């Protein structure tokens, strides 16, 4: 059984991964964070303790997912998102906190700074302002497919950059 202290500490560790999971449904990072905060409060107020870390995270994912779906339904009447079955399959494979720790985030931060000015602007508009591919296509005067290809390339290059930085960090730590 997890104590309240342990449960809340786990939720804190898993914040990015839980918000990203909820984000698959709600597709808005700010809203995902609000749902995450509600999950934290619910966890705190829950009378029955969680049996394990896995139990807690499963509970949090299901709660976040359902709230996100209810929210979308109440605001928009319908929502086109991945179905329940797919979300469950995804939940089983969703990564653990150790794969996105502060070191990885630092590496990502450094890699973002290495992007060209144009690519940084694309990333900023998409992931900070929440602009869609169509918005970007109009803004830059490019075809939508070109924009999606550009974003795909940015993700790949960031993935590669992070990998190299983490390897270098590991090597550095062994030196």
């Amino acid at each position, binding site marked *: 059984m997890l104590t309240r*202290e342990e449960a*809340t*500490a786990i*939720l804190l560790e898993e*914040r*990015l991964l839980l918000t*990203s999971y909820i*984000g*698959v449904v709600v*597709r*808005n*990072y*700010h809203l995902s*964070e*609000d749902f995450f*905060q*509600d999950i*934290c*409060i619910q966890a*705190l107020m829950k009378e029955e303790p969680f049996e394990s870390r896995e139990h807690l995270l499963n509970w949090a994912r299901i709660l976040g997912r359902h*709230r996100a779906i209810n*929210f979308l339904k*109440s605001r928009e009447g319908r929502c*086109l998102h991945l*179905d329940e*079955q*797919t979300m469950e*399959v*995804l939940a089983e*494979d*969703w*990564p653990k906190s150790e*794969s*996105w720790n*502060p*070191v*990885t*985030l*630092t590496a*990502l*931060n450094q890699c973002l700074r290495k992007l060209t000015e144009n690519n940084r602007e694309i*990333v*900023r508009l998409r*992931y*900070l302002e929440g602009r*869609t*591919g*169509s918005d970007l296509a*109009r*803004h830059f005067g490019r075809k939508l497919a070109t924009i*999606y290809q550009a974003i*795909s390339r940015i*993700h*790949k290059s*960031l*993935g*590669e950059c*992070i*990998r190299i930085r*983490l390897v270098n960090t590991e090597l550095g730590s062994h030196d």
Partner: protein
Amino acid sequence: MTDSTRHLQGNDEPPSFLEQVLQYQDGQLTEQELEAFASQIRIDPDLRRKFIDLEVQSAAIHEVLRWDIYNDPGVSPDNLGPVTTLSLLTGWTKRYGVAISIIAASLLIVLAFLIQSPLDRGKQVELPAPLPPIGDPVLLSNVFLTEEHHALFFGEVSLTTGSSLQTRQGYRLQRGIVKLTFPNAASAIIEAPALFRVIDDNCLMLVAGSCSVHAPHGAEGFRVETPSTKVIDRGTRFSVKVNDGNETEVHVIEGEAELYPSLAQVPERKSQEQWSDSAATLKKIPLHKQQAIRVDGYREHLIDFDSRTYVDQLPDRIVSYEATRTSEGYAQDLVSVTAQRGGQVHTYSVEELIPIEVTWFRGDTKPDSVGHLIGDYTRPVRPQELLEDRKLYTGMINPGGQAEPLDKDPIMETNLQEGVTGTPGMGIRFRTPVVNGPGPDVVLFEIQSFLHPLDGDPFHVYPVHSRPGLKPLTVRRFDLTMNSKESLEVVHFWRHRFSKPIESLMELETEETFPRMGTYELRFRVLAVGIDLSEMGFAEGEQVQELFIQHAIEESLFQYVVTDPTSKVDPVFIAGFPEDKQTVQKGDGKTERGWLVPATTRGIHVVRNPLSATLAHFAIWLLRNWG
């Protein structure tokens, strides 16, 4: 190499899948595409891994970008952790121990991304510059929506006060009432439900619904077309009503108008010019003051004139308000309120309004997870100040209540020894009595986000001491709603939550609080509503010193989660309107200085000195009591 980065590094995967993921993020996939996309994810573990990696990396990018925006070394990944933030929350550990502190720490970390320093209350969050709007060219007319009340347009089209109408656009007014003003000073008040279009700067097409037209001197020739008629103004006020069957009624209130019925006689309408030529050959029916006609497609016949079909103004209401702004444009302190009272529009500086003091506060029986106080990070010694001040980002929120209004006087004390339990809700006392005049007498502002009712949170207002004829008033729709352009976005604020139900003002002062700040995308707006004391049964001219306020939702339905469509009222400023007023803006746009006194009928009078005002009040009192 971590799992999460492995699949995004190479060039060997089919780019189309990543692009599909991006399309999914944008909500671009059709139902059929989404089904196929989901199936791929379920079946193919490799694609599933790629999807997860891209989703997590996207969220991580969002997070890292926010570090840059807020440039806070205190929340860089190198020093993320609860230890630093726990020190801010020592008081909380008394009740819930480390658990609360860790939650608090997590929330503070989230908040720390949003602000430069949690304790630096002076700084506002700097938002990224918005992307310039990109869209199709529009054909704007010189016709403007100059006033609206609870207007809601169906579909994607939306107009707010000050909007220019497009000439090729059909507007479907689903709810409320709007006033259009044309370049020649003609105006049309249109009531929902209505479908209308602006043909040109001198012509309105009313396809369905009702409108009331005023064409002052100089606007003669203004036209209203309907599917079966054309009404040309000759210096008048008239109303036009078109029902679903294209049957049209016209009532002339004053002046003259010309009616051209049976548009079906026009063989084909290809252009405005052709229409004008054709119309000239049609039968013209002159209409005079207090005449009415109905055109049903086959024939025209005179009907009984009904002056009630004409609406000369929008309802009394809070029209707008002004507030000081941050450099980013977010509202801070109230400066003035503009209200229509008795058909007259007045602007009151905040200094002219009658301030309140909070005399009682009690929440519902369960702790309110959103909290009861909003304002700065530090709670003031006297929390009532949060509602009594002129700041629009401070207030006392979520007073207790229930769906149906109470059927007895509220009790504003608790004495357990005598078995007296105070009523959930909030009591207020005006520093000087509010004199019930025409239209709204009290203004209440609340903060609201788009996650909650766009019309504002429903609430009950009660007289503190009941008597025959007095009754509670339930407000279900604010005058300035989330859809109103006049509702300003407010600066960020902290919400103070409590771990136990709040049962008194004293507990608001003494119970430990847990401050939290919302995410910046959920910008809160300040809504406003006027409370007409006459609707509670108070006589015009009667003085009112105290009121009691409760939320008006079913508590059992209320949850604190953001998904809940209901929420409790969140007042940030309440004040009374003064009886007297120095400057009055009249309907014709001119202003007049004087004192306002209520009239015995609808409307108000303006007199030029206080002695006259006193005498007028006395005369009205005599009329009411001996008349």
